[in-house]
């Protein structure tokens, strides 16, 4: 690559946090690198320091307990999500979204954490995390905080994370286990493609949830939709929450239409 940077591979969290505190916005965490490295190559990202977080102990820890729910270390890859039996059984929505993300080789490398920190409006993993009330554990030298993904995304490629903060872990509460749902992703080809629009419907205790990608500056969650509403009514609620644009992938008009079409397609399956 043309851009030059220094590479660091800290062996402990404190070492990593110290590096990030020291270098602030000139440091970038390197997880799977499937967003970061293409961005450096294109000149979109120009970090002076690249801090590889994959050598931290427990980076790819993936555990479930009824007490703590699902805990995904920052290094957990999309492939690891797909291979994990507990996830397939208890959190099928995570697996369903993971299955739609990129290609096999990318999934072997890409992490769930990187996907959400990257905060693309078309993020696949954001949708199940929103539907499952997941939280991000953010750490820095000044301490740790927990942020619900409902508050996490603030704009295209923007999150609540502050310079020096590291996403250490993603937690999905045990109470979200067994939530049923379905995911539909509109693509230009059947092969790997970023979502032109993505719609996930999920059940939850307080009613139906609809999460939508690529139809607003951030992934969008509409929750608390009364049970028994028909597809048109659900769509009407969702339409109010999204703000799609025209771009080279399709028009806003079609995006809006497809959100409705997918709601109509998935609702019967989810309410069943």
């Amino acid at each position, binding site marked *: *690559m043309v851009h030059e940077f220094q590479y660091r591979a800290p062996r402990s969290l404190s070492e990593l946090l110290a590096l990030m505190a020291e270098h602030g916005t000139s440091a970038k965490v390197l997880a799977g690198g499937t967003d970061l490295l293409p961005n450096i190559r294109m000149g979109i990202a120009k970090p002076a320091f690249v801090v590889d977080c994959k050598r931290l102990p427990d980076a790819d820890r993936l555990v479930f307990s009824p007490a703590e729910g699902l805990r995904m270390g920052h290094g957990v890859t999309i492939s690891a999500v797909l291979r994990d039996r507990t996830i397939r059984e208890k959190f099928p929505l995570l697996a369903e979204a993971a299955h739609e993300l990129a290609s096999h080789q990318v999934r072997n490398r890409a992490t769930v954490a990187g996907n959400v920190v990257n905060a693309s409006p078309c993020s696949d993993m954001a949708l199940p995390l929103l539907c499952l009330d997941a939280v991000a554990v953010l750490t820095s030298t000044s301490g740790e905080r927990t942020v619900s993904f409902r508050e996490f995304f603030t704009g295209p490629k923007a999150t609540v994370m502050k310079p020096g903060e590291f996403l250490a872990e993603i937690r999905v509460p045990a109470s979200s286990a067994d939530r049923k749902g379905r995911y539909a992703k509109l693509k230009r*080809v*059947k092969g790997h493609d970023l979502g032109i629009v993505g719609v996930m419907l999920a059940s939850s205790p307080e009613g139906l949830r609809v999460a939508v990608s690529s139809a607003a500056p951030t992934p969008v969650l509409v929750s608390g939709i009364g049970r028994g509403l028909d597809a048109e009514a659900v769509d009407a609620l969702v339409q109010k929450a999204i703000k799609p644009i*025209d771009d*080279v992938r399709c028009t806003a008009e*079609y995006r809006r239409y497809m959100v409705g079409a997918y709601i*109509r397609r998935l609702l019967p399956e989810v309410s069943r």
Partner: protein
Amino acid sequence: MFDQVRPEDLAYVGKDSGRIDATEKLTGEALYVSDMTVPGMLYAAVKRSPHARARIKRIDTSKALALPGVRAVVTGAELDYRLGLYVVDKYILAKGEVRHYGEAVAAVAAETYAQARRAADAIAVEYEPLPPVLHHMEALKPDAPRVHPDLGSYDHIAAVFTPKPGTNIANHTRLRKGDTEKGFAESEWVVEREYSCPSVQHVPMETHVAIAKWARGDQVEIWTSAQSPFTVRNLFCHAFKLPHNNVRVHIPYVGGGFGGKAGIGVEPLAAVLSRAAGGRAVKFQATREEEFSLLPCRSALTYRIKTGVGADGKIRAQEMTMYWDSGAYADYAVNVTRASGYSAAGPYEIPNASIDAYTIYTNKPFGTAYRGFGHVEFHWGLERHMELVAKAIGMDPLEFRRRNALRPGSITLTGERITDHTGDVVKCMDAAAKAIGYGSLTAEEKERERKTGRRIGKGVAALHKAPAMPSFTATAVIIKMNEDGSVTVNLALTDYGQGTYTSIRQIVAERLGFPLEKVKVSFECDTDKDPYDWQTVASKGLLLSGNAAILAAEDLLKNAYEVAAQVLRANVRDLAHDGKRIYLRHNPAESVDFARIAVGYAYPNGNGIGGPIIGVGRYVAQGLSNLDKATGQGNPALDWTYGAHGIVAEVDPETGEYEVLKIASVFDVGKAINPQIVRGQSIGGMVQGLGTAVCEGYIYDEKGILLNPSFTDNKIPTAKDIPAVIESAVVETPQIDGPYGARGVGEHSMISVAAALGNAIQEATGAEIVHMPLRFEDVWRALRDKTPIDNWITKSPLGSCRSAPELRNRKKDG
């Protein structure tokens, strides 16, 4: 070169045989130019224009020159060489004016690529942006900016092409047959429609790359990922006014081309950098992004067709107008226009026809050859048109096609008479239709429709194409016998994946009567060592080079027989041979091994005779002529390959989403020399055709900036995108002057796929789509009668540049 031989008497021709290049490619050992380095080699990077059209006011290279590792910087100002085969209209680096987004204005050679890239970025270019002309229909307007104000002074091949100085028209191809006015007057119906498709990228997996070394004494050596070594050399020598024997071009393995590497590409750029760097070799490899906008693409087309049909369903007259968007340079596009012009009516007989095909300059990346050479684009229009006309007159589209198909005795647009051995398009159509169960749905399909709520439709589209090439296109093949009696075949037709060398090997082994293992076709072409071949394009390779290979094999045998006759003290007429020896027919025990005469025979006393045995085969296209410039009459076609595709598509009528369930194609290949290779070409082309049908295409903003120069937004088909069922079949009507009766099929597999898809979608849902590609949204819009999205040139971000929306079906009164 077709002799009536019973298939069972053929040892290799018509049989499957493994690819000769498989092992190197499977192990990663095959060397491509992108893998190569030359001692002392520098790396190049280019500075590219951010504007579609601008005057270059000043280029400051001082910062770049001061950077570490930089060995040469060149700009257009210091280079006065224009490149071109038909219309010599392109500088190596833009001079004075940039004419498209992404055009190279300066270039750097440095010790590493990163250094070169940094230096190129450090070059400061001051531009005065000028209003670009982006859409080819706009470019025709009298007040449109002129992309090439000096068009009148450009060299061009005047016998064939007609530029219009003072306009943006790089060429006008004109054809008149019969009397269209009379034909329309006799017609019961007249249907006029317009069709279009955008520019697309070839997407060879190996991007354009060349290494050039401009040594002292103007000796230039080039290694390049290209299709045509002699064309690279020829155009290079013309541009630099160098003797041809000063320049040597090597082509090793090539990672795909599809026409995009047919002519000259990045070689001159690497060469001028090498010269500027004092003769050190320089490598330039396009990035994927550069592949989209520095290097050429396929031209966009707007195609208007007006058809008059008699009460009997026979076409009486057809008026065809093609507007080809050549982009900023038209060297290849003029020939695309010419070839498409004389084929514009497809495989149908039109008694009264007129064709006007224009090549139009615009400020966009330029067009070149792409698999099908214009035929994919215009068959999209034509074969959608045949469908729409059939529907307008209430006839089954397949029946309408059949009724108008070219048959023995028919006269083509240029006045050529179709014969019994030209090929059989009706057979192809019928076989494609049969393969998909055209005309009705099976019980299973009906059940599937009921279950899914989706609609299934079936469409057929036919095609034809002849090689587009100069009338006197020539090639040669040399076969050299090795010391052990095996042979090595040299030719400068390249095999960049099509498998032609494997087929040539089968032809040579067949004709020599040698076991396959004794025949090697040498990879890596070298203009210093290989005999001439014009270009590897046009699906002419197997036919011309195959014939030359047969002649070379015969020549080699003749030479071997002469020596053997002396050794055996026999008359040449009394000799015969097998894979190992030449013997007396009347006394087979008397023989001499090929190995003993291969490089000269030595008598027991030491006296030698003969010398190395070599066979030379030369072949030139015969009987072809330039077309009359006013009427287009003449004989342009070496051979016609006919074919048809059938597609079964399943469409969601609510959303426009669809899936191709099945695709079948049938080509009259004359003779499938190697069935698996024919099948590979057939499937590869179909899927490439599906890509451009379904989603590929260049999208620009209103300033002419290409918005999707990457795989992120220019998707190509993946393995998941191929139909569940793919069938390919051939008809074998021997081509009398083809090797073992064969004709070309490399490009044809891609032609008409889009039209077959459009026809199937229309059959399923009624969506009447006339613009390619057929994105889900396009189908959805067509179903709702919404204005088609037209973001091929967007007006921030959406707009419309369709011409003549008023054109609609109309039924003639009375």
